[in-house]
């Protein structure tokens, strides 16, 4: 089980490769999202795993790949990464990683928690979603409609 987890982590590390092609990055992002869905399954969040695969690996990545193909980004091959920004970014992000991991390991967040005993979560999730969180649900649907209209408006050739 833990080996599976570390394997996923290894996949996630490769998810931001320094190959210069955006299509490769997009493919590794798909792999990352699928392994993240695997982590959700390990956490017994089956519904969220399904949603993750459907929405992210399905819809969002199709959008990304479509835009990449549409823009035809070839010129990144000959651009070089600036050494200064790379080194600065590595140092600062490494510092943040150290702080995060040290604080998590120092806090020992799982020490005082009992073993998880949630069962049959999808039904409970649906019940909660349609009773207590009904208003946010409707608001999110309106937000999706607004986003759709906005995207159509943005991608029109000429606004009249």
């Amino acid at each position, binding site marked *: 089980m*833990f080996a599976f987890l570390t394997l996923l*982590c290894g996949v*996630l590390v490769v998810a931001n490769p320094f190959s210069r092609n955006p299509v490769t990055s997009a493919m590794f992002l798909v792999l990352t999202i699928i392994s993240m869905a695997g982590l959700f399954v390990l956490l017994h969040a089956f519904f969220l795993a399904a949603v993750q695969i459907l929405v*992210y690996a399905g819809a969002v990545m199709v959008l990304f790949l479509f835009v990449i193909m549409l*823009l035809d980004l070839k010129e990144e091959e000959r651009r070089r990464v600036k050494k200064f920004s790379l080194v600065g970014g*590595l140092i600062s992000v490494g510092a943040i990683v150290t702080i995060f991991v040290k604080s998590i390991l120092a806090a020992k967040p*799982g020490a005082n928690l009992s073993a998880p005993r949630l069962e049959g979560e999808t039904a409970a*999730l649906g019940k909660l979603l349609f009773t207590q969180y009904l208003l946010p649900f409707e608001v999110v649907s309106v937000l999706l409609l607004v986003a759709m209209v906005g995207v159509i408006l943005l991608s029109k050739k000429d606004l009249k």
Partner: protein
Amino acid sequence: MQAPSLHYSITPSLRCMTPGLEHYLVVSALLFCLGLLGVVTRRNLLVMYMSLELMLNAANLALVSFSRFNDNLNGQILVFFIITVAAAEVSVGLALIVALYRKRQTAHVEDLTTMKL
């Protein structure tokens, strides 16, 4: 698959059989920092956007693991809403990038210096 499990069963500090909350949190933190590194170092607008998605996913993972280990479903509801809003946000952002590309014929942040003093 076989070798890493052997390795981690030997390592004394990681000898637990089932991953606990802190392991998920460490994975989430690493993923977040990976996305942050991508945003900071890459100069392509699309790749920066993908790294942003990675950071959002890391936050989702932390929320789901907290929700699992606290026996509380509200975290999963929140992650559901985050995924929905992220889908809307991705579509709007990509439309913005396409409109920008139509106007300026570039997707690099270094070419977009109109607001620079």
